[in-house]
């Protein structure tokens, strides 16, 4: 039964994903396109584009869309597809949720244990490195363009990046506002 399989596959994806959003997408691809044939390559590419263009966690966006599309593809009506979408999204969440609650409980009750304090004191600088690495890895041509394609747009992208960086760090500009402004600039310029 499709719904049972949706539950199983997305539960599996939810608990085995260790690399964040984009790693989750490749896991979703191998499970739903390659193994289960619930959707085509073209439909999956749509999902990647849509997941990146809609707000919210990429994993949830992808789960919702795959859930909906796979049910429609199997011939069910739209209302059943909505159920499929919700089921897929909840399935991707529930196992890691339980794990997280257990860890939260432990941390909240043991936060004054010396070993917990020591471990986290060392982890805090490391996570800064992790996040900085994520930013560095995103400095690529998909996000900034190339000087050869259009020097003006390339420079503009870099300028927007630097502007938002200082705006949020030094001038406490609301990040949501910064995103909207950049989007509007994109509308005007591209």
């Amino acid at each position, binding site marked *: 039964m499709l719904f049972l399989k949706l539950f199983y596959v997305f539960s599996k994806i939810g608990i085995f994903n260790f690399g964040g959003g984009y790693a989750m997408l490749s896991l979703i691809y191998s499970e739903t396109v390659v193994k289960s044939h619930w959707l085509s390559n073209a439909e999956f590419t749509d999902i990647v584009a849509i997941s990146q263009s809609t707000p919210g966690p990429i994993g949830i966006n992808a789960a919702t869309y795959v859930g909906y599309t796979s049910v429609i593809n199997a011939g069910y009506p739209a209302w059943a597809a909505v159920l499929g979408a919700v089921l897929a999204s909840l399935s991707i969440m529930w196992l*890691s*949720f339980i794990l997280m609650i257990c860890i939260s409980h432990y941390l909240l009750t043991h936060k004054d244990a010396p070993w917990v304090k020591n471990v986290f004191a060392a982890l805090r600088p490391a996570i800064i490195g992790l996040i*900085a690495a994520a930013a560095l890895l995103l400095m690529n041509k998909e996000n900034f363009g190339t000087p050869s394609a259009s020097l003006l747009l390339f420079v503009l992208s870099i300028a927007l990046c630097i502007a938002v960086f200082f705006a949020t760090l030094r001038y406490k500009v609301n990040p949501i506002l910064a995103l909207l402004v950049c989007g509007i600039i994109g509308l005007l310029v591209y």
Partner: protein
Amino acid sequence: MLLKFFLTCNKIGAFTLGGGYAMIPIMEREYVDKNHWLSREEFMDIMVVAQTTPGIFSIDIASHIGYKLRGVWGGIVGALGIALPSIIAILLIAIFFHNFKDNVYVEKFFRGVRPAVVALIAAPCFKMARTAHITWATSWIPVVSCLLIAALGVSPIWIILVAGVGGYAYGRMKKEGAPKP
């Protein structure tokens, strides 16, 4: 208060473009600065946990804060709060707006947004450095971690394991080296 938490999570989920890490400045602003649901240190600590465990980064963080505020139901409220705007938005797109991604205006908007996302991920690093009491002496930790991941492709999980074990070992060494009373 739970309602406020739910609506805040909705806001975070609805307005972040660019995925997990890009949500960090918005989460920090809402969770730590505006509502004081946790301290900046706790926020950093929970980011570490969220990153190391499987599951969606922003949902893990919201679950923890919800659990801290109101136990398991709080956790559920947090997780669903983040997820709900996404689910609704995607369903609307899937049902009515299949051509959303082909819309030229959407494409233009996101080309503008993408460099901003990079900045939003990089900017909190400096504020976090202050919270983590990074000095010139300890700055090698974030720099080396960053280079290992970005330039050498080391998996972040190794960094976290090594740093965690290192922290534990360093703590033990300090304790054993202390003069006996």
